[in-house]
């Protein structure tokens, strides 16, 4: 399976088994983590990690910078909260609805935004997500500034009582692992190879006969759906869907997580999300203004640390590829 990644020279001999080892170790760590750390904190990390991985699928593997991913994340949170709280749906159906709505929005956004490339793409997605923000502010079912509060945890598949923090944690972990596996599979599939080709040189991909707009659109929908899954899960975990999740600051935050961890690496966004969430919960107890610190990290990352943490590790361990 890893042979397919040979297109990128960074995977040399033996990295396949190393990657498997890393995956197994990470999974073990994730299984044991709730006994060492506060489960709610871990669930927050997992939700944002999935969100960042979904975002990274676009920027890292298709070269599309979406500056409006909060629209999918936040809208899905509203949908999950509304279906579960007001319509009394089971959590699994709430999540399916949230993911589906985010995917549909991704389809609409994608159809509009992929008509332009590069920075225009970023500006268009930002503008569209701001439209979603205003809609969320005005539509009656989102309850404006209050958001949807007190969403019941419910019982997953009628079997697992999500009021138990541990049960909830393992459910969230399963969702994350599922989403991550899907991204892993996508990146290593022929479809993923075409995406990388588009990222590296779109005109060449076109001349090879690929309808690049279609590929980009599918990637966009997939990314939006997974961002929605992450948002819906977050709404169920925290029993809350609010305006915060649809703001442009949230879109910026997921960019930072991915940038910090390493764009275009599979594990980077997970590490970036963990770091940013940890940092924010630490900063909350100090008097330092969070946006300023976040902004400074942004500036430092862009100026001297463009490969991100995982990208840097990969580059240092020999056979590195040049930063883009």
């Amino acid at each position, binding site marked *: 399976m890893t042979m397919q990644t040979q297109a990128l020279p960074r995977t040399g001999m033996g990295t396949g088994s190393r990657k498997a080892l890393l995956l197994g170790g990470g999974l073990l760590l994730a299984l044991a983590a709730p006994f060492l750390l506060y489960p709610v904190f871990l669930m927050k990390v997992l939700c944002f990690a999935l969100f960042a991985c979904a975002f990274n699928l676009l920027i890292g593997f298709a070269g599309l910078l979406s500056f409006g991913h909060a629209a999918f994340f936040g809208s899905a949170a509203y949908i999950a909260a509304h279906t579960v709280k007001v319509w009394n749906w089971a959590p699994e159906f709430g999540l399916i609805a949230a993911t589906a709505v985010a995917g549909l929005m991704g389809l609409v956004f994608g159809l509009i935004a992929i008509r332009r490339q590069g920075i225009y793409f970023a500006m268009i997605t930002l503008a569209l997500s701001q*439209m979603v923000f205003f809609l969320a502010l005005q539509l009656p079912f989102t309850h404006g500034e209050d958001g949807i509060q007190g969403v019941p945890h419910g019982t997953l598949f009628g079997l697992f009582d999500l009021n138990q923090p541990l049960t909830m944690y393992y459910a969230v972990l399963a969702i994350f692992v599922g989403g991550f596996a899907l991204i892993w599979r996508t990146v290593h599939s022929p479809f993923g190879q075409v995406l990388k080709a588009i990222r590296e040189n779109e005109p060449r991909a076109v001349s090879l006969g690929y309808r690049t707009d279609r590929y980009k659109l599918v990637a966009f929908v997939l990314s939006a759906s997974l961002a929605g899954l992450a948002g819906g899960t977050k709404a169920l975990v925290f029993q809350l869907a609010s305006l915060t999740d649809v703001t442009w*600051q949230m879109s910026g935050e997921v960019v930072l997580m991915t940038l910090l961890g390493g764009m275009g690496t599979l594990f980077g966004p997970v590490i970036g999300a963990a770091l940013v969430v940890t940092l924010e919960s630490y900063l909350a107890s100090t008097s330092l*203004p969070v946006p300023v610190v976040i902004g400074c990290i942004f500036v430092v990352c862009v100026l001297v640390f463009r490969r991100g943490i995982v990208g840097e590790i990969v580059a240092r361990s020999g056979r590195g590829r040049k930063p883009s």
Partner: protein
Amino acid sequence: MSHLFGIPPQALFGQLLLGLINGSFYALLSLGLAVIFGMLNVVNMAHGALYMVGAFVAWLLLTNAGVGYWGALVLASLVVGLVGLVLERTMLRRLYKVDHLYGLLLTFGLALIFEGAFRHQYGVSGQPYPIPDLLKGGTNLGFMYLPTYRGWVVVASLLVCLGTWYAIERTKLGAYLRAATENPTLVQAFGINVPVMVSLTYGFGVALAGLAGVLAAPIYQVSPLMGSNIIIVVFAVVVIGGMGSILGAIVTGLGLGLLEGLTKVFYPEASNIVVFVIMAVVLMVKPAGLFGREK
């Protein structure tokens, strides 16, 4: 004719004037963005934050140093322009050789820093800024009441926009600038210091944002959030107009401001999103923007 389409004319023209004022700010800001983008290939995400900084510098000058509106108009623009020069020299410059997206990300980080710092210092509530004595009062035009200051804002920003257009399209310096946009290497070979020109362009572009901030201070309150509220709309304006043309930026900015004003009269619920909807429609019909060229 006391009612136009069932709307009292006072309300209609009042909203149209407000739209025209918003449009003036859209025009000034998108003009700066277009100038910067043309030369540096950077989408300046910090533009809104620097607009806010301009307003704050004016407010700080007034409260701490007693410098009034007219002094602030010049000084605040200069200060913001200088900040821009420093940012370009120390940071943006390092990113010209990598993907343009990094310029966008850097300026986004800078915007967060500016906004966060001012928010930390001054809170989110707005600070009032008085209208200068010379521009107080207003005139009754018969069909509506025109506050002098609002009329001044529209005229002043139009003058600045047209002046910029003239400087870029009709003067020698502007010709150098346009040439350097097309082919920096060749212009450099002719003995023109392109790096300095790039710095000055960025400084000038953000100085326009600072100027817009001072103009806006007496109309909206001076608040740390004023920049991010307006800049995303300006991005949509830029996408609609296409960044290729200066006049395009001005016309689109004013036009969309007016349209927003009209929406406030006839269907207020949609006034926040009308620009974004128009952007989506324009992208479907003419992806390069109304005044843009397909590359």
